[in-house]
């Protein structure tokens, strides 16, 4: 029975991990329509940043910068030629992710490296270790920051304008190029932060990104592309579902169940949890 009750906080903490890895993706996806398959490798970059610095707290801002700059370079070098063609960027960024994985293998070696968690994260309350609580806190902070950015700042509004009508944005005086760069910088930077957090609970190696990317995408889909509230609810929902499905069956079956539930869910809410309708025909 306690094990059963324990699954609740565990589900929430799984949800927090999902949210953290999906947050940056939601951002770039929702704000720019870019499906960034290299997101996982930006997460990896964040994790390696933590490894190199050896200090988790310092690593958070630095990883944000490192991954953000990587995103910036990717945007300038390639993605900007692909706006309005989300499916093409998906494939392009996948190519990038392959290269980045190999790069990591050459820079840091194929075996995993270890990031030592700070001692103040040892221990926990009840079933939840402090490091899980830390991740939850980070996820909440990330959501609040993104929400404030999008709704409380002019930059956020400009970002939305560009994704909704690029040409009109340009002729309304918005420097679309700069907005793109900034958006991609932030979205990728968030991946870097997630990467730092993940060093607390998982392996740090070249394949790190591949372990999380599919789940991150599922959160984004179930939440409604780029919808922040959707992503939050979807992450929590999927976290709980995962936790209880695995509790009653096993890890493999739980993944299959999650997929089935998402399909079923899309029968009721075809565009995800939240959807902004527009009258304009496609």
């Amino acid at each position, binding site marked *: 029975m306690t094990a059963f009750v324990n699954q609740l906080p565990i589900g929430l903490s799984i949800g927090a991990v999902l949210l953290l890895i999906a947050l940056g993706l939601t951002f770039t*996806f929702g704000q720019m329509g870019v499906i960034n398959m290299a997101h996982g490798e930006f997460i990896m970059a964040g994790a390696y940043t933590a490894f190199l610095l050896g200090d988790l707290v310092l690593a958070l801002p630095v990883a944000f910068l490192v991954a953000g700059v990587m995103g910036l370079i990717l945007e300038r070098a390639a993605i900007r030629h692909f706006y309005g063609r989300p*499916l093409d960027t*998906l494939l392009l960024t996948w*190519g990038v992710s392959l*290269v980045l994985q*190999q790069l990591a293998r050459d820079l840091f070696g194929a075996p995993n490296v270890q990031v030592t968690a700070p001692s103040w994260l040892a221990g926990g309350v009840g079933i939840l270790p402090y490091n899980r609580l830390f991740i939850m806190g980070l996820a909440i902070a990330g959501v609040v920051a993104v929400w404030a950015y999008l709704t409380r700042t002019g930059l956020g509004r400009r970002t939305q304008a560009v994704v909704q009508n690029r040409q009109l944005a340009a002729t309304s005086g918005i420097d679309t190029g700069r907005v793109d760069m900034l958006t991609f910088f932030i979205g990728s930077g968030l991946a870097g932060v997630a990467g730092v957090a993940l060093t607390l609970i998982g392996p740090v190696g070249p394949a790190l990104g591949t372990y999380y990317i599919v789940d991150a995408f599922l959160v984004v889909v179930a939440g409604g592309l780029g919808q922040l509230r959707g992503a939050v609810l979807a992450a929590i929902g999927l976290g709980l579902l995962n936790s209880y499905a695995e509790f009653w069956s096993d890890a*493999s079956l739980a993944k299959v169940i999650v997929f089935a539930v998402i399909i079923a869910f*899309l029968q009721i809410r075809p565009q995800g949890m939240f959807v902004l309708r527009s009258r304009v*025909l496609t």
Partner: protein
Amino acid sequence: MIKRHLPFAAVAVVALVAAPLLLEPFRLGLLAKYLCYAIVALGIGLAWGKGGMLTLGQGVFFGLGGYSMAMYLKLTEAGDGGLPDFMVWSGVENLPALWTPFANPVFALGMAVLGPVLLALVLGTLVFRQRVRGAYFAILTQALAAAMVILLVGQQGLTGGTNGMTNFFELFGQDLADDSTQRGLYLVVASVLGVLYLATRQLVNSRYGRLLVAVRDGEDRVRFLGYDPALVKTVTFAASAGMAGLAGALFVPVVGIISPALLGVVPSLELVVAVAVGGRHALAGAVLGAVVMGYAKTAFSEQFADGWLYLQGALFILVMTLAPKGIAGLTERLRRARTT
């Protein structure tokens, strides 16, 4: 008319006559493998290039075809009342009921195509009717591939788990290790690809093909022309699934193994990438892309076992940025440049 078919005829002659004569058996086997992928690519070209459905889970259909064929091969090998090797070491004592009909080659081959078609029909009906499309559809199919792999891996007694199935000896009484059998298989694969290519081309040049393009570019508008876009998409998706299934069935005797690794997220993506590199707007581009990328992967990994991923990724990034319409788009541009 004749001029239009000339390139196809030329390619067909090279593929059917020259390749088996010139290539050593190992290389011919690899080519046969690429051609199997080309069949899948053809389906992707139809569904994605023409119909706008980016399917990142085509490996699932490929796998269903492959597993059907593998089940048949395993059963012929085990003989009456025998059990496939992996069942023995997985502790399975009686042949599962699911397996029994696959002893019949007609059933197995039929299921290799029908299984994927049915799954695609069900999935397509569910998602397309709900107007799930674009990136949603792409990601859903990707998740399907991930889930399928996990399901297959988890049912070791039924599917061979991660190992999948391997260790096949004969197909319709022919020794699979024999070079002449492999040559024969190659010819079968090449012919199937040729026939499917012609049929698909016919389809995209028909009204149906126009309708498909219309659905891709304006699904909602198509509704007001009196068509049901969900139906059009579902049928097309099922057709591409059927092709993938058939390709899978041919793949198994050619390569000698089927495993979840062949149908997961990565191989499914690789196929789509191949189509993009070849040029998704032209069916020939899709086919070409599969062969080129297949060859590139083999060549790169043989030459640079340690860093071939760089080359594969770089090749792909370059093609996508410099020639967004792929190789087919380049040749198109060249042809235009010459005529004007």
